[in-house]
């Protein structure tokens, strides 16, 4: 299997469903160490993505991700909007005009997305941000490709599992970037909302390929 435009559209649709379904959960995570808006923002943003996709259905995975990027940038706001926007934009750029994406290309696109987040947000691993979901996911995807995983689904599953583990691993951390950093030690003992939403996005990618 190769990832195509249909998969991309399905992925974004499942992302929107996941954000709607986990809206309160993400709000609740952000309430504990932030300002209670992450779930609302992600839900609003991905609903807007669906509307945009319906208005002008894109023809390539890259075009779909670029449209998603621009929409997230203009509809999410807060820290997550520009960060996810940049991630999707860099991934789209990495994919170029390709209509079908293989494992290696997808792993590279994810890495480009992660690099975009780091470039904008300057967070390092362990700072208790979405980077703590993305970097394990990128590493797992790359490792699977290096190990010769032929099937892109394997890559997607490896990335999703790593992202979920990475999100869970933010629980004990003290935040050093973003709003949660204002809490200092009090941020420990809570999951980072952006890492949690990232894990949902990686899991949706598996669902879209299933």
């Amino acid at each position, binding site marked *: 299997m190769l990832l195509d435009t249909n998969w991309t559209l399905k992925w974004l649709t499942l992302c929107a469903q996941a954000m709607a379904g986990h809206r309160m959960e993400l709000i609740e995570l952000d309430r504990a160490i932030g300002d209670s808006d992450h779930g609302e923002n992600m839900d609003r943003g991905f609903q807007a993505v669906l509307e945009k996709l319906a208005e002008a259905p894109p023809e390539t995975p890259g075009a779909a991700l670029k449209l998603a990027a621009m929409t997230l940038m203009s509809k999410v706001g807060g820290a997550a909007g*520009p960060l996810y926007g940049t991630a999707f934009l860099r991934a789209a750029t990495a994919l170029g005009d390709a209509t079908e994406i293989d494992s290696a290309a997808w792993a590279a696109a994810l890495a480009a997305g992660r690099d975009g987040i780091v470039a904008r*947000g300057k967070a390092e691993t362990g700072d208790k941000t979405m980077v703590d979901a993305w970097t394990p996911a990128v590493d797992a995807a790359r490792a699977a490709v290096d190990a010769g995983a032929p099937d892109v689904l394997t890559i997607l599953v490896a990335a999703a599992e790593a992202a979920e583990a990475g999100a869970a691993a933010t629980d004990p951390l003290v935040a*050093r970037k973003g709003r949660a*950093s204002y*809490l200092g030690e009090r941020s420990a003992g809570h999951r980072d909302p952006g890492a949690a939403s990232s894990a949902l996005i990686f899991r949706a990618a598996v669902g879209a390929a299933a």
Partner: protein
Amino acid sequence: MKKLINDPRSVVGESVAGFGLAHADLVSVNADPAFITRKDAPVAGKVGLLSGGGSGHEPLHAGFVGRGMLDAAVPGAVFTSPTPDQILPATMAVDSGAGVVHIVKNYTGDVLNFETAGELAEAEGIRVRTVLVNDDVAVEDSLYTAGRRGVAGTLLVEKIAGAAAERGDDLDTVAGIGERVNLNVRTMGVALSACTVPHAGTPSFDLAGDEIEIGIGIHGEPGRHRIAMENADGITDRLLEPVLSDLKIEAGEQVLLFVNGMGGTPLSELYIVYRRAAQVLVDHGAVVARSLVGNYVTALEMQGCSISVLRLNDELTALWDAPVHTAALRWGA
């Protein structure tokens, strides 16, 4: 959750619309994307002053649009920074060719969104300078945080930079004055209760009946630490101490004292805090030359307040005194 709203998702749009109706003599409201401009924007030859951020801090920022203060305000969703597709057209709407100063409170989201908008504006040929406000002494500015937050001091930056722009200062001068204000103001806040973000529906944190949060920001986030309830004088001393020591106020210096309500605290209590803070400053040898007391930079209906001290000099005092005519701050005009 009991609020005078129709739907959590329409709160900002309807509130801004009402604001536009009530102050049609002062401002124009653009509904989508949402931004508010001075009625007579762009003012020929004048540097444009724009600020924005998440909603829920009213009257900040829209209440400060008008002569002598902001040319534009860009409201995001509640506690969510606005997006570049709002900030860019607002910037374009207030640029007369003299450039636009963006006053940005130091939060990751605000910084990133204004950064992108600034780049896009520059690409459109508009000169943009950014003044980052980070007056909150509750947060240490270190490698281990996103840096100090911008809180109530933002109002002082907007007023004073606004007066500089109004008198015709150029882009770099206006931005420089804004930065000077930021360097000379420090703030510290306390919450007696949390607030409830409309779309969240539950209070932003849980506080026992005898506890207060010290070192809170303006987004309903918990503070630096939680202590047992104290009386007003005790709390005032606790807030003022880090402000004064960080600002290194010395005897004989003139200051502006700003006691800001978080939205749900009665004005009478703010004056009780003001009374003590003024006494402490006088004991400290400072001269309270100007003051401001009220609910100006709020966190919805949160109970609590912040205390800001701004070190004045003759120029800053004159700019503070200069006429201002906005919905929420008005004098000399």
